[in-house]
């Protein structure tokens, strides 16, 4: 027993229960929550009348220590306790050791070696913070009760306190996750609203343009009229695809997209996408160069979708009128590649690399700004196929967007 034995009066059980109730109340009302580890350490130390308490929290990684004056030196040696925690499995279950039991622990040898003239430690109590799903959230460790060894009552009281703290930590984490989910939903709705307003603006604009011409008594030039009506048709198609894209993002984010893998020739598939794209989506020609057949395992529908979204994103970011080139490379069958090159793109390879870094980090299309839905869906499809998205700078200054696939593909099929 350390401290001043003459002045110490042990608490009655009722007194200690009162302390536990007060401690629970203090912990529950602690704000900001960053202070919780420190408050928990202070309350655990108070309830057990111990001299040293250290609280480790896993998420966020945080350590708080509170101790009596005589134990301040221990703060520089808490790493010695880590070995003990591992050795006795205190991360998963409460462990209470007496002085003799501590000295018998092989892990305690390090304490003996480093601190030969230390005061003997009369008792050690370790109580893990366990979540409702049995996840390890943290650990409370106490050294030296004023009565020497820790009692079963100490273990029960600190165990109760640890449960309260675990619930608060979990509630806090859930509240944070719920807030993130709501925020992500709001941002997504905002993005969808933005993306819907563009085609609606175009439809309204083309209609008003034609009305102005008629009001002025202009005789519509048949060719211009045809182009305007074609634009209206294309915008209507885009609106339909946009609605489908929104549904797709919801399904992708909910993990509800499954792949139907088939052995497909990549060149044939790219040519059919190019033909479809040119007939309805773009005024730019698309060329497909595949020197040899490349058969790989993909979901043909999703792969088409991926290609369309990538080309759409590249096309939307460029004023070029020359061809968009698609290359299919076998790479000796090791890792087939599909590459897209826009030699008139104003996006540098450095900008593309930044975009790819952003899409790889983001969990939502909202982080990608305008046209983000296309790039986000394309990336999700590549990831589902177990592929990679990369960028290469060509010697003529153009940028090559590369979709790499594993040799047999379909790793991510769900």
């Amino acid at each position, binding site marked *: 027993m350390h401290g001043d034995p003459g002045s110490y009066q042990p608490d009655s059980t009722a007194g200690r229960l009162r302390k536990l109730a007060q401690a629970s109340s203090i912990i529950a009302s602690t704000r900001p929550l960053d202070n919780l580890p420190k408050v928990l350490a202070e309350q655990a130390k108070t309830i057990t009348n111990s001299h040293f308490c250290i609280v480790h929290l896993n998420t966020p990684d945080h350590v708080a220590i509170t101790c009596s004056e005589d134990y301040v030196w221990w703060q520089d040696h808490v790493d010695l306790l880590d070995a003990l925690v591992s050795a006795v499995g205190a991360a998963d279950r409460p462990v209470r050791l007496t002085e003799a039991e501590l000295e018998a622990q092989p892990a305690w040898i390090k304490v003996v070696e480093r601190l030969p003239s230390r005061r003997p430690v009369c008792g050690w109590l370790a109580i893990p913070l366990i979540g409702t799903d049995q996840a390890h959230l943290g650990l409370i460790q106490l050294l030296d009760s004023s009565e020497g060894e820790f009692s079963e009552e100490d273990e029960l009281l600190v165990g109760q306190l640890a449960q309260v703290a675990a619930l608060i930590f979990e509630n806090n984490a859930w509240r944070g996750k719920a807030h993130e989910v709501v925020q992500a939903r709001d941002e997504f709705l*905002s993005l969808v*609203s*933005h*993306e819907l*307003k*563009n*085609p*609606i*603006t*175009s439809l*309204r*604009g*083309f209609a*008003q*343009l034609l009305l*102005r*011409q008629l009001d002025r008594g202009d005789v519509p030039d048949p060719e211009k009229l045809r182009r*305007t009506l074609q*634009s209206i048709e*294309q*915008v209507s198609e*885009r609106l339909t695809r946009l609605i489908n894209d929104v549904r797709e993002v919801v399904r992708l984010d909910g993990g509800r997209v499954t792949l139907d893998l088939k052995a497909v020739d990549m060149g044939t598939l790219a040519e059919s996408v190019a033909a479809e794209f040119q007939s309805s989506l773009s005024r730019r020609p698309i060329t497909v160069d595949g020197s040899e057949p490349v058969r790989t395992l993909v979901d043909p529908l999703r792969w088409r979708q991926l290609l369309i979204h990538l080309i759409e*994103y590249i096309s*939307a*970011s*460029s*004023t070029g009128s020359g061809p968009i080139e698609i290359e299919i490379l076998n790479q000796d069958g090791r890792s087939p590649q599909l590459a897209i090159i826009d030699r008139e793109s*104003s*996006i*540098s390879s450095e*900008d593309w690399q930044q*975009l790819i870094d952003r899409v790889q980090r983001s969990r939502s299309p909202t982080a*990608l*700004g*305008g*046209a*983000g839905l296309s*790039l986000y869906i394309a990336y999700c499809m590549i990831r589902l196929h177990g592929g990679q998205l990369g960028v290469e700078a060509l010697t003529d200054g153009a940028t090559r967007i590369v979709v790499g696939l594993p040799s047999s593909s379909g790793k991510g099929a769900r």
Partner: protein
Amino acid sequence: MTLARRILLVDDDESIRDFISQALVEEGYEVTTAPQGAAALDLVDHGQPNLILLDLRMPVLDGWGFLEAYRGKPGPHAPVVALTASHDKAAAKLPPGVSAFIAKPFDLVELLDLVERLTDVPK
């Protein structure tokens, strides 16, 4: 003879660039277009417009990025009208250097009136 006023239209949506360009050309303006901020910066290096119509949310370099880079160039600077699909946000946080904003979907007459006022071209 009055020289045609030059308008730089920056929007990632091709059909929006199409109909606004058509309407402005019919009103006698000279129009150049860019699908995003980086391409627009290249264009202003080759000739200062009298007015910039600028979408804010675009890939690669968005409207805010364009404005920052454009304001960093030697003046004089053309007035900028922000075209935005986010009405409330734009009203609350109009970026520095923006003379006016117009919320999508807008009325074509409203846009043409604004362009006329800011370029001061008599009809």
